[in-house]
């Protein structure tokens, strides 16, 4: 599956099928700090993601000072 990441903006190819939480673990990302979006819909951590899916992993942490 094609996974789009931010900060910095980049794309990686990950082998599916795979559950959301397994995908995050493989990329060493914490669920609490990210949203996983398939197409334009949010998915939960137990959702099975297929090879053909377009996935965006969106960071949610922001803030300066």
């Amino acid at each position, binding site marked *: 599956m094609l996974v789009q990441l931010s900060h910095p903006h980049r794309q990686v190819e990950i082998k599916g099928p795979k559950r959301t939480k397994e995908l995050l673990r493989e990329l060493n990302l*914490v669920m609490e700090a990210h*949203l996983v*979006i398939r197409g334009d819909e*949010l998915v939960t951590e137990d959702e099975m993601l297929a090879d053909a899916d377009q996935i965006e992993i969106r960071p949610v942490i*922001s*803030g300066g*000072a």
Partner: protein
Amino acid sequence: MNCTKCPTSTRAVIGLPRHNAAFCKACFTTFVHEQVARAIKAFKMFTPEDRILVAVSGGKDSLALWHILLALGYRADALYVNLGIGAYSEESHRKVRHYAETVAASHGAKLLVHVVEQEAGAGIRELATILHRPTCSTCGTIKRYQFNRAAVEQEYDVMATGHNLDDEAARLLGNVLHWQDEYLDKQSPTLPASVEGFAKKVKPLCRLSEREIAAYAVVNRIDYIVEECPMAKGSKMILYKEVLNRLETESPGTKQRFYWGFLDKQTTPAPATESMAEKDQRTLTPCTICGQPTTAGTCSYCKMMAKAKTAAQPRA
């Protein structure tokens, strides 16, 4: 994972371990609105008659806040401060303008804009260089000043910011780590207009995590700037948030207990203090077996050893 609230168990779009719940789109939107309504009521933020000025940046928190307040029927206009950070400011300004024109205008709400470069003659980066100050600190001073000035001059009853649970927990962690107790009072979700010239300031998103607000924005199709401010890279606040998110992952509800516990302690009068020695003298007596101090008749050690000896005795 199915929605834990729906009788028909619709597919959930988000799981919330700290609430031991999962919600579909509709129930999640209701949950977020209820959390904001509870914060507004609990901290006496404003009434439906009040005019509210929302500080918007183009990010998820401030645009979601504006969206929620309008959805709840409040009279909320917004102010955007263009900081002059090149393409980042252009993009965030475009997102705010787009939201104002496509959503807020239909509620009769308007967008005010202040451009730093027009008044100061330079953008935030140039000003920070001239003043030999960190950019985030220069930015914070300018935004606080301009939002307060607009709220006071245009006679808004209250100014609302998009500070969320993560912002407040991270700030609290920073303040406690460095024992900056003079800043703790400012962590209340409602700051009164203490003197002439200060607007009342409120944080209606203080019960919601950063992830919940981002999810609300996605579910409700709010087009916000995902890109992080280029000036915030490597900031301490982001480090504190990362640490707290690690703890939250291991123990859901940590951020909430940390910040809400602090607020509870702030509002609850401290009981009469008793020193540790005074308390020990009042509660401890010698153990009936060994004589060491204990709150019970027989101390835990002697009880444990007696039990072990009984268990170790061979059965007849």
